[in-house]
């Protein structure tokens, strides 16, 4: 497993809004089963980086190479739109900070989880529903809510439903943008524990953007610290947080401890 090639190879990546760079000169590798946290304050470029890596924003500079499930390596910028859409259906997931952005709020919970299965060709209604019910259970949503729309759910339940909708097709790589912010502390703990165990069980690779260093410590193996659009420190998560080298990382870490 140590000799497996990286899932994602990111070299010199930058995205510019007009003539101002949102992020720039980013190099990183991500291996299967690895959770990478991207931390920094708002405006540091972390969400822009997530957008650029997930092909939701164009690359102004650099390249992102991705190892497909079938073993071939592709340069993401060279993929057709149809090929990128296929990746989103079969190999990638995206968990938004606001569940309403990732869910269909007026479609039933079962429909939200079943829809990605139908998009990859599942046709048998009973099997789709059974798989949806199983996933609701895994994300701790009572199965008797399967016919209720997420608009009737609490924010914690909505976020768990969004995770089920993303994971039901067994993706290989999931992008998460601040998935726990905006939730109460106890709800946050439950969600983090859920993400942590699902990631381990499924062997997912995850890139998670968060401003919360506690979230990074709890679920990530490696951490990248961003400031002004650039990576200023990266490494093993516990080393970055316990022995930060860059002035800005020391400031971030000390600010957390005061909280």
């Amino acid at each position, binding site marked *: 497993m140590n000799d497996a090639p990286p899932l994602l190879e990111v070299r010199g990546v930058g995205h510019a809004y007009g003539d101002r760079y949102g992020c720039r000169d980013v190099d990183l590798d991500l291996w299967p089963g690895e959770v990478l946290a991207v931390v920094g304050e708002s405006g540091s470029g972390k969400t822009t980086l997530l957008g650029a890596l997930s092909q939701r924003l164009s690359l102004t500079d650099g390249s992102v190479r991705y190892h497909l499930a079938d073993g071939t390596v592709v340069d993401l910028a060279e993929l057709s739109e149809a090929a990128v859409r296929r990746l989103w259906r079969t190999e990638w997931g995206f968990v938004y900070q606001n569940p309403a952005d990732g869910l269909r709020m007026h479609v039933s919970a079962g429909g939200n989880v079943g829809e990605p299965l139908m998009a990859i060709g599942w046709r048998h209604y009973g099997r789709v529903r059974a798989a949806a019910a199983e996933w609701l259970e895994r994300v701790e949503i009572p199965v008797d809510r399967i016919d209720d729309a997420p608009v009737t759910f609490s924010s914690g339940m909505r976020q768990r439903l969004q995770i089920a909708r993303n994971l039901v097709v067994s993706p290989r790589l999931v992008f998460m943008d601040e998935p726990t912010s905006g939730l109460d502390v106890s709800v946050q*703990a*439950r969600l983090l524990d859920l993400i942590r165990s699902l990631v*381990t069980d499924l062997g997912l690779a995850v890139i998670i953007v968060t401003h919360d260093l506690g979230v990074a410590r709890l679920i990530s193996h490696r951490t990248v610290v961003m400031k002004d659009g650039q990576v200023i420190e990266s*490494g093993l998560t*516990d*080393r970055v947080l316990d022995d930060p080298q860059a*002035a800005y990382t*020391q400031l971030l870490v000390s600010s957390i401890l005061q909280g």
Partner: protein
Amino acid sequence: MNQPVLAVSGVDKTFTMHLQGGQRLPVLHELAFEVHAGECVALGGASGAGKSSVLKMVFGNYAVDRGSIVVHGPSGAIDVAAASPREVLAARRAAMGYVSQFLHCVPRVAAQQIVAEPLIERGVAAAEARERAAALLTRLAIPERLWSLPPATFSGGEQQRVNIARGFITELPLLLLDEPTASLDARNRDVVTGLIREKLARGTAILGIFHDAAVRGVVADRVVDVELFAAATVAAA
């Protein structure tokens, strides 16, 4: 002689405090020592001499300015001082365990699961891992009614014993112990001393900080005085 499980040589460690105007705090200079299989080495020196920092550097938790920290695991040697994050994680999985002074509580995870996790992560079946966790928790006098609860609400001594159980459940070539018997009563201290001696008998190399002189006297083969490697303090720039 056999090669050591842990070989530290020429290690310097300085903390640069950017929030205090870039003040540099040199802690260690030319640190060097070895730990062999079945041997327990205690780190000595006054509080603040850098004993915990040594354990953290060996575990890869602290960065190293220069020098090497070579750990010989089942799949070969790795220099933690120079290794990539993935290599450090692989070395932790295959070659070294670390019992910190305090349990890092993960919200909502039950005590028995916390103890069993290191085995499950290394491929042991969940049922067997939980069984072995139960045996260790019993030995460390954690009442069975607590096993299904997250340790966040446990007493300090109970949390520390859960932490010890988690650290001792695996059989790895190198075990790092940071004050394992602090906040334990005499009976539990004896249990931990017994666990340490059993590890040594099975060939584990142990590097530890033992505040308690009685415990140190029973388990340690020799002491490495960290103060001998103290770096000269340099005034702020």
